């Protein structure tokens, strides 16, 4: 029992401490790909520290939602990191770790961010919130259908079970339904974490920003929490993608050696996916907001096909 609690604590630390490093290395890789030198990979830690020691300015017109949201968003991400099977398929919080619960936990954070964006009453906040809600509403059906495609194959929505069964199936990658669900989920992950074809995390350009517009009113420790939570969300989505769709290396026993292997495998898979995202972000332009529904409906169709082909193709 103590061992499994220890594993959970390690998972929590990996997400909490590793996410700024992930964000920093993606920025660094993008900078190198674009011919710039870029800031150090540890820059996000410095940014977080800087924001934590600065004063937080809060508008007089805001309600409790504005102050409550950063803490809620950060704690939702920390809670989710207990549920996602990261190192081992035997997480003690696994009994709550249903994939549907996880997705709606993440949506709870999005919901409160959108409310907080509206709360201060600024034009940009409201614009950001309405855009974020458009994207969330369009991504939602895809997430559910892609999850059904995976869950149907395994016969359960428990994350641990999905990863365990996947690791046993050596021909997993030859399964069209699996690949289609992966592509659909990847597109949705880009949309949900505000990455490039949908939202540009690097700009504050008023016409295009979505996530940045919502959190424009935040400063000091609140901004630090939200930025940190954003990094954790990206980390969680990449972990989910790598462990649900490439489930090799995840420890099935709680012993030191398999867990160490699982850690190495996780680092390898997440950095591979992060590099793929960075390369993708360098090679494509942001979509116009009105074309985002086309992209997301495309990914919805892929998810739908994944479910259809589960029923017909063996």
């Amino acid at each position, binding site marked *: 029992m103590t061992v499994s609690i220890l594993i959970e604590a390690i998972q929590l630390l990996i997400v909490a401490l590793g996410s700024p490093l992930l964000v920093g290395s993606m920025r660094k890789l993008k900078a190198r790909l674009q011919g710039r030198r870029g800031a150090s990979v540890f820059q996000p830690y410095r940014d977080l520290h800087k924001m934590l020691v600065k004063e937080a300015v809060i508008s007089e017109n805001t309600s409790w939602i504005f102050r409550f949201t950063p803490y809620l968003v950060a704690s939702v991400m920390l809670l989710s990191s207990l549920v996602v099977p990261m190192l081992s398929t035997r997480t003690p919080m696994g009994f709550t770790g249903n994939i549907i619960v996880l997705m709606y936990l993440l949506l709870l954070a999005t919901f409160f961010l959108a409310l907080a964006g509206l709360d201060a009453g600024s034009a940009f906040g409201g614009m950001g919130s309405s855009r974020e809600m458009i994207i969330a509403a369009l991504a939602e059906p895809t997430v559910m259908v892609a999850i059904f495609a995976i869950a149907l194959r395994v016969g359960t929505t428990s994350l641990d079970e999905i990863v365990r069964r996947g690791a046993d199936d050596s*021909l997993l990658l*030859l*399964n*069209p339904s699996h*690949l*289609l669900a992966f592509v659909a989920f990847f597109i949705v992950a880009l949309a949900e974490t505000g990455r490039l074809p949908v939202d540009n995390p690097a700009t504050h350009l008023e016409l295009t920003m979505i996530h940045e517009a919502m959190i424009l009113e935040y400063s000091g420790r609140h901004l630090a929490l939200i930025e940190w939570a954003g990094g954790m969300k990206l980390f969680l989505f990449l972990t989910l993608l790598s462990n649900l769709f490439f489930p090799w290396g995840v420890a099935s026993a709680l012993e030191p050696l398999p867990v160490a292997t699982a850690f190495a495998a996780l680092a390898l898979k997440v950095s591979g996916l992060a590099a793929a995202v960075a390369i993708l972000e360098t090679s494509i332009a942001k979509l116009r907001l009105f074309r985002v*529904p*086309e992209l997301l*409906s*495309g990914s*919805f*169709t*892929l998810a*739908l*096909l994944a479910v*259809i*082909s589960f*029923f*017909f*193709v*063996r």
Partner: protein
Amino acid sequence: MFVEIFPKLVNLLASLALGTAFLLIARGDLRGQVRLFAAQSFFVSILAAVIAVFARSAELFAVALSLALLKVFIIPGILNRAVSRIGLQRAVAPYLGTPAALFVCGVLVAIAFYVMAPITTSNPLPTSDAVPVAFAGVLIGIFITVIRRRALTQILGFLMLENGIFLLALLATYGVPFIVEIGVFLDVLVAVLIMEVFIYRIKENFDSIEVGEMGRLKG
């Protein structure tokens, strides 16, 4: 080992070919569409080669090779020449928007699986599982020719339809005899050559390759 992987590999390649047909609907520029057709033909010829190795048929392997030569290199080359001769085109909205078209395609795939289910169950070949996928390719090819406004995209829809029919024959019966296949390939090549000239004439006369324009009288 190979016997075990073979049906899965066939399913995967057939699904990839179907996936390129989906992408053709989402893709707007003509050059990208031609490249997608070349990609689909590439997957189909790889599939034919895999089946040829499995069935130990030299004849089928020759079909796969000639398919790759014709549809991955020659026909896309001809179509690319047509694209350069047409020049830049004002983008026009299709009869049906992308999201709706993609959704209809999803439904078409479901219909294909429903219609082809009896054939899949009664066919003893290990490739029969992918037959509905090929049939879905045929349906989507027809659908593309119907909903797109530009003549070139309609040709690509027709060519994808032809790929689908080839795939259907390949998966259901391990392919028709070499001589028949070559005849079909030559027909397709001639059809594409004629259609290329046709597109060029349409462009000369109407200053656009949008088929909607052709309904209007020209003085």
